[in-house]
């Protein structure tokens, strides 16, 4: 950045630095560093001047605000700018620290924007962070310049380090610049499907930011929210619900599917997220469940009314009524409602007051009356916390005590007031104590109140007297006691106390004035001593109002007051006039002259209010010639019966606000407050929350129902399908909430076999349907297998590569192997099954319209060998079932049993090839032993259990396409925990890779229980080299350096070529690209099949059909760059053979030749 010419000379700058920036320099760490800075600066300024022209000039000269007033600021900022421009990180850091200090003090630092923004790509992480702080603060003001930094963040979004990805997204989304909205949207969407939960969490945080910047993005954001709501990690849950609450709190339908998951995750979510989730779920539950107190609410009301009336008959009547009502409508709590209550209860023990309060309000609003009580203890505990917490809790307790007094009665003493409490807390405690008062505890409460009256805090004393008044009005029995107590207070030395008592007594007397003429008399006597105007006024009002009860005293009081009239306060004067008027109307004989006198005095009062009042009253009560019609009604006007004031809590009816909310605290609707909905009249459909089962059903419909109901023509076919069911029959039933689409046909098939009927008894419907799908999948697999076979047969040019990939990936694959083993044992091939098989294939082929006729005929041809396969299902079921149970169990989100069989998933691919080999090329059925090369997948050790301190890690190359990135080699890693304790947070850190190599980490394994093992898949792009990929394997306690080095054969993936294509491709790869070796086949390589097996075991290649029996051909391509790898092995008599490898990558070719040679010559 080029400095303004006038300032670029070093002398004035230094001068200004000395004079102006003294304050700043105090914050600079040491004198030596400042000196260094100065030296550096002079050097850098020269440097800057040199390259000057290209940098843009900051525009502060044109800024009117900073025109003249802040001109010294430029100079001060000037040295900061130079420090920022220097190439020393320490100087930059120092400058940034000073700038941040300016921001913190609220000083304007916006003119430094161009200088700061350049450092956004600084390597030093602290400088970078401080630049972010600055950027977020000022980007809104300097939008154009802020755009310069965007590309840095966009780069950061693609960084392999999750921390950098997350922080890039965080800052990018915090920059409030409208132009980048589309970029933000894209970044959020991408981050929402990031592998790292931390990045996903950041994405959730970014959603409300974008929404507040541009509300028009709402629809797209809701999609992202919906996606993130489905996330299963606790890290994300709180943040996404937060986003939900800010962006679309009314889209309650998005919660349905995630409701149970949220309930179950709740306890492990961080505390702030818990608060948000609980508040949201409270609202959700209000819309989805029935009022658990639907019957009690009536009961409660009636009993509460009867409480004071003590009218036993009425009480009993109503109770009976309520009881019958309860009988009529038995209430059963929805299990989901119960789930919520059960899962939130432990959180009452949280150390975070906000969480406790959130649970308390949830219980208050949602729990059956009998269960609400448990929250009292926790809330009382919060009263030990800071006074602000107490304040909020007491506000809420005050509201609760009005509705549910019984809940807090045992904790009465916890609300006793200490002299050290702040006044606002004291007053709230009084409120609670008053609400809690009833016949049994009123005496202790009153005794307590008596001590409060002696307090030095006068506001509190006044509140105490009012509280006594409220107790007196609420509880009939103590009214007299209270009144007497208050009357005693009238002789208190403190006027405030007396005044407040008079006011309260006035209110009390209004309720039953007849019985208390002596109190009125007593107060009349007091008027000589009481000086507080309000109290004097109150007494005068009382005497006037009830002058009929004290006929003798009243005129005397008026006489006395007339004497002192001129010296009284205004409100007292008004009441004297008032008293005079009332006495004139009731007892004109005695008071006529007095009244005249008072009115005359008032006529000449200084206060116009009083003069007005006097004139008005004179016209009204003294009959003259001109007096209008109103004077006739004077008595009615003045002596009308006034209703007794109602002393009620200010907290009454506050509970229509959600407790714990800001709106409740202020007793006014705050911006963005979501009303707590009323309970629904009738039960909304509870099945909307059955998330996984629904998806399951959909699958069943697509896969099963079509063949079953629309495609299957013969009843026989259907029955035969059913005969498969017994294979799953010994599943442990778990009752699913919905019925599967199959259930109907199930009953029909019950008689088919004994085991089928067994199953219909024990198994759960939904589970079955799942099983069904599973089997369906498998059959699909077989289907494809057959197809491929057929294709191989015909040596067509079509490439079934993707299909094979699909079949290998599908869920049934893993089980297939075990099933296949079963084939060996169980030779129970039945005609019917094979038929069912074929029926399946028909359906299948109809779905995939391609080649359907061919496949049909083909399969029928091959029926015999295939028919062996179906029985395999019988063996795998038990294990498989267990796995699926966990999938189905909606409430159980613990990681699926880690004991899940750890079979290399890739078995299929290699064995399949050889299998097909046997079926297609030779007509004789090969012995199963040769087909299943069980050892074909080699497990490599990644971490020995001794070096891994009990954690053993093995890996193998599963030879499956790695779906997230087709250029990566899938590496299947198996963790076994041999210790006695859990291992947690297994993840990868700090990959140290050769250039170009990439790693796609597996998702972190949260917990690996003792003795368990678990398998994950990660992807590595080796760049077609056999260099090892190094990285750290981290647990929650340790880090282990490990490396994976791929054998050359694993760097490729099979390609299906026809014979002609093979020849053609081979022709292109001659010369340098062809490597040939002669070799002697090993003793065991007796036939072609073994050769095929050996080669495919060594390298991930597929066999290419060949006309000659003496030659085996294989094709594949490298995973990363897709170069073809062609292998030819012509055999000669006597075990001699020649191996030819054609490959563009010579290194791979050479290595491959070596490996295959070794494999074949053994």
């Amino acid at each position, binding site marked *: 950045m080029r400095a303004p010419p006038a300032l670029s000379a070093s002398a004035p700058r230094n001068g200004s630095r000395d004079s102006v920036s003294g304050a700043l320099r105090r914050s600079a760490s*040491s004198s030596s*560093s400042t000196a260094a800075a100065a030296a550096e600066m002079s050097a850098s300024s020269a440097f800057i001047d040199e390259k000057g022209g290209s940098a843009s000039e900051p525009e502060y000269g044109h800024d009117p605000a900073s025109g003249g007033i802040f001109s010294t600021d430029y100079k001060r900022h000037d040295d900061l700018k130079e420090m920022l421009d220097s190439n020393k990180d320490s100087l930059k*850091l120092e400058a940034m*620290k000073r700038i*941040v*200090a300016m921001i*913190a003090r*609220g000083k304007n630092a916006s003119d430094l924007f161009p200088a700061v923004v350049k450092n956004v790509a600084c390597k030093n992480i602290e*400088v970078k962070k*401080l630049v*972010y702080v600055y950027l977020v603060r000022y980007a*809104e003001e300097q939008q154009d310049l802020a755009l310069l930094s965007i590309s840095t963040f966009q780069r950061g979004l693609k960084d392999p*380090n999750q*921390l950098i990805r997350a922080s890039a997204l965080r800052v990018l989304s915090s920059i*409030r610049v409208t132009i980048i909205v589309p970029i933000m949207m894209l970044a959020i969407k991408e981050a929402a499907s990031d592998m790292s*939960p931390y990045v996903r969490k*950041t994405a959730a*945080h970014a959603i409300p*930011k974008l929404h507040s910047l541009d509300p028009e993005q709402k629809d797209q954001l809701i999609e992202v929210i919906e996606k993130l709501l489905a996330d299963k990690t*606790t*890290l994300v849950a709180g943040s996404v619900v*937060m986003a939900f609450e800010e962006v679309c709190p009314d889209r309650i339908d998005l919660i349905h599917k995630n409701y149970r998951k949220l309930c179950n995750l709740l306890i*492990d979510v961080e*505390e*702030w997220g818990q*608060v948000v989730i609980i508040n949201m779920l409270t609202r959700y539950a209000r819309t989805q469940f029935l009022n658990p107190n639907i019957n009690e609410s009536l009961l409660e009301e009636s009993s509460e009314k009867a409480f004071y009336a003590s009218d036993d008959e009425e009480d009993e009547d109503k109770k009976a009524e309520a009881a019958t009502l309860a009988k009529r409508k038995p209430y059963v709590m929805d299990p989901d409602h119960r789930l919520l209550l059960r899962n939130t209860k*432990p959180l009452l*023990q*949280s*150390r*975070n*007051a*906000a969480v406790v309060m959130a649970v308390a309000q949830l219980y208050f609003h949602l729990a059956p009356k009998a269960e609400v009580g448990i929250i009292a*203890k926790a809330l009382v*505990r919060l009263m030990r916390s*800071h*006074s*602000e*917490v107490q*304040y*909020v809790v007491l506000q809420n307790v005050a509201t609760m005590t009005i509705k549910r007094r019984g809940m807090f009665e045992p904790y009465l*003493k916890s609300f*006793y007031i*200490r*002299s050290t409490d*702040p*006044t*606002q807390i004291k007053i709230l405690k009084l409120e609670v104590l008053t609400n809690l008062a009833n016949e049994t505890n009123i005496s202790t409460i009153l005794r307590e109140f008596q001590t409060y009256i002696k307090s030095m805090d006068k506001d509190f004393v006044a509140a105490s007297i009012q509280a006594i008044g409220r107790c007196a009005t609420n509880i009939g029995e103590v009214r007299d006691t209270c009144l007497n107590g208050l009357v005693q207070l009238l002789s*208190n030395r403190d006027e405030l106390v007396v005044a407040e008592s008079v006011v309260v007594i006035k209110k009390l007397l209004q309720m039953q004035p007849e019985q208390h003429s002596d109190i009125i008399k007593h107060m009349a006597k007091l008027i000589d001593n009481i000086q507080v105007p309000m109290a004097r006024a109150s007494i005068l009002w009382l005497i006037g109002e009830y002058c009929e009860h004290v006929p003798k005293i009243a005129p005397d009081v008026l006489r006395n007051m007339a004497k002192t009239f001129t010296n009284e306060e205004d409100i007292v004067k008004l009441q004297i006039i008032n008293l005079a008027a009332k006495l004139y109307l009731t007892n004109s004989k005695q008071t006529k002259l007095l009244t005249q006198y008072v009115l005359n005095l008032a006529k000449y009062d200084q206060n116009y209010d009083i003069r007005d009042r006097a004139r008005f009253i004179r016209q009204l009560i003294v009959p003259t010639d001109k007096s209008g019609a109103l004077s006739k009604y004077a008595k009615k006007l003045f002596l009308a019966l006034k209703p007794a004031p109602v002393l009620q809590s200010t907290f009454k009816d506050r509970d229509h606000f959600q407790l714990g909310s*800001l709106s409740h605290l202020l007793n006014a609707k*705050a*911006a*963005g407050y979501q009303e707590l909905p009323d309970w629904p009249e009738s039960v909304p459909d509870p099945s909307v929350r059955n998330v996984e089962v629904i998806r399951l059903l959909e699958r069943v419909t697509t896969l099963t129902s079509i063949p079953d109901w629309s495609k299957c023509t013969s009843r026989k076919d259907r029955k035969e399908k059913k005969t498969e069911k017994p294979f799953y029959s010994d599943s442990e039933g778990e009752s699913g909430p919905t019925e599967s689409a199959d259930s109907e046909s199930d009953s029909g098939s019950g008689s088919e076999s004994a085991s089928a009927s067994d199953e219909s008894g024990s198994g759960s419907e939904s589970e079955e349907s799942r099983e069904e799908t599973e089997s369906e999948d498998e059959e699909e697999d077989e289907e494809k297998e057959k197809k491929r076979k057929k294709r191989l047969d015909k040596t067509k040019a079509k490439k079934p590569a993707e299909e094979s990939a699909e079949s290998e990936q599908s869920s049934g694959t893993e089980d297939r192997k075990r099933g296949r083993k079963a084939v060996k044992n169980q030779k129970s091939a039945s005609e019917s099954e094979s038929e069912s098989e074929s029926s399946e294939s028909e359906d299948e082929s109809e779905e995939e319209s391609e080649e359907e006729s061919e496949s049909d005929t083909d399969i029928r041809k091959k029926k015999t060998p295939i028919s062996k396969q179906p029985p395999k299902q019988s063996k795998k079921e038990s294990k498989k079932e267990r796995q699926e149970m966990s999938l189905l169990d909606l409430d159980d989100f613990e990681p699926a049993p880690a004991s899940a069989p750890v079979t290399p998933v890739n078995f299929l691919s290699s064995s399949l090839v050889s299998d097909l080999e046997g079926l297609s090329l030779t007509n004789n059925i090969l012995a199963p032993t040769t087909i299943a090369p069980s050892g074909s997948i080699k497990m490599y050790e990644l971490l020995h259990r001794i070096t891994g301190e009990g954690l053993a890690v093995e890996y193998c190359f599963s030879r499956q396409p790695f779906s997230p990135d087709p250029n990566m080699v899938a590496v299947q890693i198996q963790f076994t925990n041999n210790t006695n304790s859990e291992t*947690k*947070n297994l993840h990868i850190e700090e990959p140290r890779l050769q250039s170009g190599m990439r790693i796609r980490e597996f998702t972190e394994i949260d*917990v690996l229980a003792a003795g368990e093992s678990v398998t994950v898949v990660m992807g590595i792009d080796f760049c077609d080299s056999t260099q090892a990929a190094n990285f750290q394997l981290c*647990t*929650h*306690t340790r*880090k282990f350096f490990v490396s994976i080095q791929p054998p050359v054969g694993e760097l490729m993936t099979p390609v299906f070529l026809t014979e002609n294509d093979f020849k053609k491709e081979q022709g292109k790869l001659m010369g340098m690209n062809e490597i040939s070796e002669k070799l002697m086949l090993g003793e065991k390589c007796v036939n072609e099949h073994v050769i095929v097996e050996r080669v495919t075991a060594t390298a991930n290649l597929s066999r290419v059909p060949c006309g000659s029996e003496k030659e085996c051909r294989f094709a594949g391509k490298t995973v990363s760059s897709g170069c073809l790898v062609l292998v030819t092995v012509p055999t000669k008599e006597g075990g001699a053979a020649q191996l030819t490898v054609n490959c563009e990558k010579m290194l791979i070719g050479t290595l491959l030749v070596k490996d295959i040679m070794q494999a074949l010559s053994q």
Partner: protein
Amino acid sequence: MIHSLFLVNASGDIFLEKHWKSVVSRSVCDYFFEALERATEPENVPPVIPTPHHYLINVLRHRIYFVAVIQSEVPPLFVIEFLHRVVDTFQDYFGVCTEAAIKDNVVVVYELLEEMLDNGFPLATESNILKELIKPPTILRTVVNTITGSTNVGEQLPTGQLSVVPWRRTGVKYTNNEAYFDVIEEIDAIIDKSGSTITAEIQGVIDACVKLTGMPDLTLSFMNPRLLDDVSFHPCVRFKRWEAERILSFIPPDGNFRLLSYHVSSQNLVAIPVYVKHNISFREGSSQGRFELTLGPKQTMGKAVESVLVSSQLPRGVLNANLNPSQGTYTFDPVTKLLSWDVGKINPQKLPSLKGSMSLQAGASKPDENPTINIQFKIQQLAISGLKVNRLDMYGEKYKPFKGIKYMTKAGKFQVRT
């Protein structure tokens, strides 16, 4: 959620501001200053102040108001609890949370606030995670940083953040493995004039200082867990184990933390360890008042009562006090009318007393309120509720840690009305 934060000192100056969303002008604090003026005492400022466009939620700690600006509905406790957590973090980082400390470390403060909230929503509040992100300043590190130019900012994502034990970082190493637990109980009591107990409760906490290598899994069991009526846990404690077996099972955070706070069930009678004999009287008509106070041990289970401090707010009419303590020292502030007497240890043979006279404003009527006496004390090696830790076991690591348990009883809000 939280829009902005302003820090206001005792004299009403804003000395730090931080905005998480768009910038809110500091003039919004005028509403706060209005409320501050209205309040008679500093602690009487309402925690929530509505203004036309914003809501101000404030907490007062260490004579600094932390004023958060809110724009829309949010549970007030959420904000209050967060602000307190901020203060705790500052205290943790700088040792004290004063204006000077915050100003000196303004960059660290800013970095902390940046990490603790994202867009106004709490992000990392666990001190363990924060300390990995931003290293607390120490003298040594400041020196090293100035020389080497290295930074306070961690370069790694804290491992805890992503794990199921966010409160503990990995790779903890100590040469001496030790775990200390302090069982501290506080008695809250109100004693009336005649010496009878109006209300008394025991609140306890277990504070731990755990310095153990690796990932230890501890279990702590009590001899008499039934005593504990209401408990709240550090998030590390496994709630289910407690429910089922009344055992505290947890992977501890590294360093100091509060493991548990509890309330002893109110059915148990609370032993009151001290008694007070008092005679504070004012005679009508004279400008003199008598003041007599004697302390004595009551139910102390044979342990000594130490660090006794008596304080009392005398009525406003009292001009001065001329008192004579049998031990310790006393002070009387004629402005605030606060009398405090540092007694020290109570010797059962020779009970401490404070006697003398108070001079009142001449001609004023005698004050009719009597002062409340607040007492603080400590009793070492005693948990007044009788709670006893049975044993502490460690699993998951092979070394033998050094374990220590300390008991202490303190006065909480212990008041005697006169």
